């Protein structure tokens, strides 16, 4: 199994760079190569992809058993896994882009797996187009890097690239920073982060060009990792089977964007401005997405928002790592060469732990959906007794997500917050800008929100003794009618108008409670579930849950495993970790870290308690009718109206423009052509009148024509040619 190879290779603490082959070549030596590279980050990703992938495939055996089109499902899943493996093994941006797009394709196909459902087809299209916007930015960023760094002569590159000898001595991508391979991979040294590529000297002295390149690459990552403002596709992507949501839209594919940011930081680096923007986008997204999770009525969408939010954390951590590298670069000597230290391992650590608990959350949610046949949280409740394994494993996932020790999320999230704090401190002491503190505050608030929404979900589904799980299980395949699911609980009247998704069930918008019109799939969501009654699934589905729950605990202790430290460059295991391991210099117990850890713990605890206060009895909480929060609730439920905005943009502006252009094309451009045609046919009709049959008049025209010819060739042409030699024209 590929996983095993990955683990073995990774544990050897070396880079493996296989001989690559030329994919497209130009005779001036510019080659577009394809090769494989196992880097530490890549190895970590391999573990994530293949472990989660394997468990999801196992789980699918039962979960998807009664669906049509299983060969297609498994084929697409396998294509996805191989594309993802290719992505993390790529050794240059072109290959990365190739795999990146293939991953996007698989996502498109899998979101649209239930293609008969219009909402699924629409969600698939949306995912592809939104990520495509990011891809275009990404392409441009790569072009900038290529044309600036790819054209370097061997003399100019900054330290990390100096003295590189390229195979063949030509402009080879793999030599000139256009590869993830640090130049000295052949010497079997440990991982070498390099950050010198973005120096202005490499960009013709321009300091904003590398910034721009970084921001454009961020654009690509934002598309794939659903960061603000390209986040809108991910909640809709829950139209795919839950297994797909677990694998692709939580654990692995969306992580590709973070991985892109991390490797870009390692091999090229981000300028300070770009790094701060990354922190800002990440910090803001973490809070922004979390707030939408509080009101979402659909169990999968809550988890989807949490994915966006957690990805925001990771992006923030990469940004913070880049800020630190930019402000206080530190070097370690490797084989006598000073090499820049990087801290992206912190983000990768969160990616690693998040992959397991997020897959766990999705798969448990899948088990619930499978059991009760609905995705609507307000129809669930009291499942704890009937689904003990599911409820406990999901609790583990929820605790890990909230960041409660000893679950993995605590260590990684705490580490990440600590890194951001460090970056913020550096920025404010060195540049006097408190901006990063603001983003840090947003992220800290998001800790509270995270705990709040995930425990709202857990309490609503499992707590209490209601047996709402007996909801009328929607039949397979056919989209369930937009049943007024809120009817049993309807009390409020502020019926918000139906959203752009044309879901016009007259559902009353029940603040913080009801399933409302904004999420179309909540009504038809029971597509891939179906055993009414609600009980734990069989071992095929349970084993993955238990394994993932174990991993959700164990992943936090990853840095303790001897020999894997190099997989997570720059990770200093804070607070508890330090106490336990006391590993290395500079990791002594630190008051700031302790305070930060306590603060985030306190926020998480507060979140859980708040959730308990509102939903602890498993009942649906309703805002009073006159509550001022109603407006806020409506905004959240409508996802800050971003869908409406983009839909409006697409249908009215872009499509409108297209229709207008079509009109111009038909009536102005083609109309002109038809006009000319008309002119000629009229002219020929009048020309017919010249055919008088009178020889002398013909002769007159002949003379006129000849004269015109002579004037043209004897005067006009020589004038045009401007004194140049006029060739002897035959016949004249």
């Amino acid at each position, binding site marked *: 199994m590929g996983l095993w190879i990955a683990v073995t290779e990774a544990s050897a603490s070396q880079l493996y760079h296989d001989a690559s082959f030329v994919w497209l070549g130009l005779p001036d030596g510019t080659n577009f190569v394809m090769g494989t590279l196992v880097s530490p980050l890549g190895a970590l990703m391999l573990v994530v992809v293949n472990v989660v992938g394997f468990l999801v495939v196992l789980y699918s055996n039962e979960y998807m058993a009664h669906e049509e089109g299983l060969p297609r499902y498994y084929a697409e899943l396998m294509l996805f896994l191989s594309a993802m493996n290719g992505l993390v093994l790529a050794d240059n941006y072109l290959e990365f882009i190739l795999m990146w797009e293939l991953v996007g394709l698989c996502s498109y196909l899998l979101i649209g797996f239930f293609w008969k459902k219009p909402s699924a087809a629409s969600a698939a299209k949306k995912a592809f187009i939104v990520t495509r916007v990011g891809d275009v930015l990404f392409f441009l960023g790569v072009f900038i890097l290529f044309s600036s760094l790819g054209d370097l002569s061997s003399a100019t590159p900054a330290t990390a690239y100096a003295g590189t000898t390229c195979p063949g001595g030509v402009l080879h991508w793999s030599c000139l920073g256009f590869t993830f391979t640090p130049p000295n991979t052949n010497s079997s040294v440990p991982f070498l982060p390099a950050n010198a590529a973005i120096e202005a000297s490499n960009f013709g002295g321009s300091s904003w060009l590398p910034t721009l390149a970084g921001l454009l690459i961020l654009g690509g990552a934002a598309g794939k990792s659903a960061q603000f403002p390209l986040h809108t596709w991910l909640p809709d992507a829950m139209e795919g089977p839950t297994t797909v949501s677990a694998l692709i839209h939580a654990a692995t594919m969306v992580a590709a964007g973070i991985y892109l940011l991390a490797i870009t930081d390692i091999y090229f680096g981000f300028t300070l401005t770009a790094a701060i923007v990354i922190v800002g986008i990440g910090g803001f997204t973490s809070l922004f997405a979390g707030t939408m999770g509080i009101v979402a009525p659909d169990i999968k969408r809550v988890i989807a928002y949490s994915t966006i939010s957690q990805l925001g954390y990771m992006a923030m951590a990469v940004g913070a790592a880049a800020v630190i590298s930019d402000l206080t670069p530190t070097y370690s000597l490797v084989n006598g060469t000073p090499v820049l230290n990087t801290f992206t391992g912190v983000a990768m650590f969160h990616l690693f732990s998040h992959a397991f608990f997020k897959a766990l959350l999705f798969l448990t949610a899948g088990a619930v959906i499978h059991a009760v046949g609905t995705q609507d949280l307000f129809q669930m409740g009291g499942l704890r007794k009937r689904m003990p394994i599911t409820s406990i494993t999901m609790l583990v996932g929820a605790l890990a997500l909230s960041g409660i020790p000893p679950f993995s999320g605590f260590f990684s999230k705490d580490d990440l917050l600590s890194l951001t704090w460090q970056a913020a401190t550096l920025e404010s002491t060195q540049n006097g800008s408190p901006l990063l503190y603001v983003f840090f505050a947003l992220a800290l608030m998001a800790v509270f929100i995270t705990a709040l929404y995930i425990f709202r979900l857990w309490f609503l589904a499992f707590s209490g003794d209601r047996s709402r799980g007996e909801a009328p299980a929607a039949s397979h395949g056919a989209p369930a009618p937009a049943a007024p699911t809120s009817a049993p609980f309807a009390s409020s009247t502020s019926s918000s108008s139906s959203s752009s998704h044309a879901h016009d069930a007259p559902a009353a918008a029940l603040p913080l409670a009801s399933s409302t019109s904004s999420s179309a799939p909540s009504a038809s969501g029971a597509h891939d579930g179906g055993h009414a009654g609600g009980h734990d699934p069989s071992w095929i589905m349970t084993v993955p849950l238990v394994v993932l729950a174990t991993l959700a605990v164990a992943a936090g202790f990853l840095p303790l495993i001897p020999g894997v430290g190099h997989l997570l460059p720059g990770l200093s295991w804070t607070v508890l970790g330090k106490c336990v391991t006391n590993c290395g210099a500079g990791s002594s117990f630190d008051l700031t870290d302790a305070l930060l850890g306590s603060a985030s713990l306190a926020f998480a605890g507060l979140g859980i308690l708040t959730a308990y206060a509102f939903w602890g009895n498993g009942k649906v909480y309703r805002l009073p009718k006159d509550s001022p929060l109603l407006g806020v609730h409506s905004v959240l439920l409508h996802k800050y109206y971003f869908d409406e905005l983009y839909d409006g943009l697409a249908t009215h502006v872009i499509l409108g423009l297209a229709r207008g252009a079509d009109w111009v094309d038909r009536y102005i451009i083609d109309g002109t052509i038809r006009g000319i*045609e008309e002119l000629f046919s009229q002219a020929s009709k009048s020309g017919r009148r010249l055919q008088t049959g009178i020889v002398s008049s013909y002769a007159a025209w002949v003379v006129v024509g000849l004269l015109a010819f002579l004037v043209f060739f004897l005067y006009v042409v020589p004038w045009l040619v401007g004194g140049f030699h006029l060739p002897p024209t035959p016949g004249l």
Partner: protein
Amino acid sequence: MPWLSALLAISLVGAFVTFLTGRYARWAALGVSLATLVTVLAIMMEFQPSVNVNGPGYCQQGGFQFCELHTWFTYAAPGGGFSVDYLVGIDGISLPLILLSAIVTIAAVVYHWEEKKDPHGFFGLMLLTNAGCIGVFVSLDVLLFFVFWEIVLIPMFFLIGHWGGPRRHYAALKFFVYTHVASVTMFVALLAMVFLGDWHSFDFVNTFGRQSQDAYLNPIVQALLFGSLLFGFGVKLPMVPFHTWLPDAHVEAPTGGSVLLAGILLKLGGYGLLRLASPLLPTGRELLTPVMLFLAFASIVWGAYLSLAQRDLKRVVAYSSINHMGIVLLAIALWTQLGVMAAVLLMFAHGLVSALLFMVSGSMHHTFGTRDIPSVGGLTARTPVLSTMLMIGSLASLGLPALVSFPAEFSAFLAAWNGLGYWVLLPLMALVVTAAFYLWMLQRLAFGPPKGIPEKAHDLSFPEVMGMSLLVGLIVLYGILPFLIEQVIPVSALFSVACSAGPLHNGLIGGACTSFQW
């Protein structure tokens, strides 16, 4: 062995033989197109990716191979006179397009295996079109080039006019008049180039490298001639605003006609710009580069936006062709090695992909009686094979990696970035629109609950599947291993570019070509 003459003979004689074969026409057509393909493959085997331009032989100095020179007739006149030659030869720019012609033709023949209406005429005309295209691609003499160029027009006129849809007569006439006006303009410009440039022969190999010398045509004349050629070839390409014949012609043309039209005929325009206009009139090219770039941008954006607004599947594909050929024009206008390579590669890719998409459109019309996108839906449920082909074609056309367009588009945009900087954002953003219209089309046609599908709708027939599968296989093959076709291009691309760098911005003038060596 006169390979190219053999190739021309097989395709031309084969086409005429097919006219006479009556009900065995399809077998004759298959045999002829197979023989053509085999000959092309044999030529590819013999082809040297990099050639010593200082080698023996007159034509090798132009970087061509497989040259054959026979004087057709000469005209002696005081002060010079001229000769007209049968001069053929190929290089890395023409070879991929010749291969493309052979492939697309055989796919079209197989696809139309069950053609009922006058099959001998239908197949014969298709083969004649192919022969004409191959003739254009191998000619190295202006007159020979023009003869083949005109040969292409006539069979296509009849294909549209006799086998086409309800408005076929209008469309055929529009196609013919439009492209003929363009040909005449082109012909006059070519003649003017030959006579004013004092060539004394019509072969343009001999002219490579000479045109940069000071005593060549004056800049204004060059610009005028280049402008005329740009119009002549641009109509064929087609570029905005001379594109409106294309949607009409496609909508009315029979499927095979559309396939050849999009697959090969559009490439003639690009090839003409690459082979004749740009290298032979370097100063004119440089003066008009802004115009070319503007028209390229216009075609890219206009084509993409208009695709979004279309309801007829064929019109969607037709406008997307305008978009893609706009990228080709952009890559040519850059006139860098990477640009030329990208242009050739993109023409090759677009030939395969648009041929596939037009086959799908044809089958859709055949199966459902309509190509109107909003009135049909959920094809996947009833006609899964057709739906799959539609999907592969769309994804290939929007530039998905591992399919043939991706390396081509990537090279083109990289070349554009190197040459133009941030302007590349404009065509890049059009990529989003391209993705949007294809995916929107897929969403409406392929997915969702079945809608508007007649009871007795059947999936693709075996010949249709075979024709499409050939294209799909190559789309995937050349997408994963693009160097299989790409490796022949760069040397010729570099040679063309280096030999025709105008005096305005490149130091390579005068004898740069003659001392050119690999």
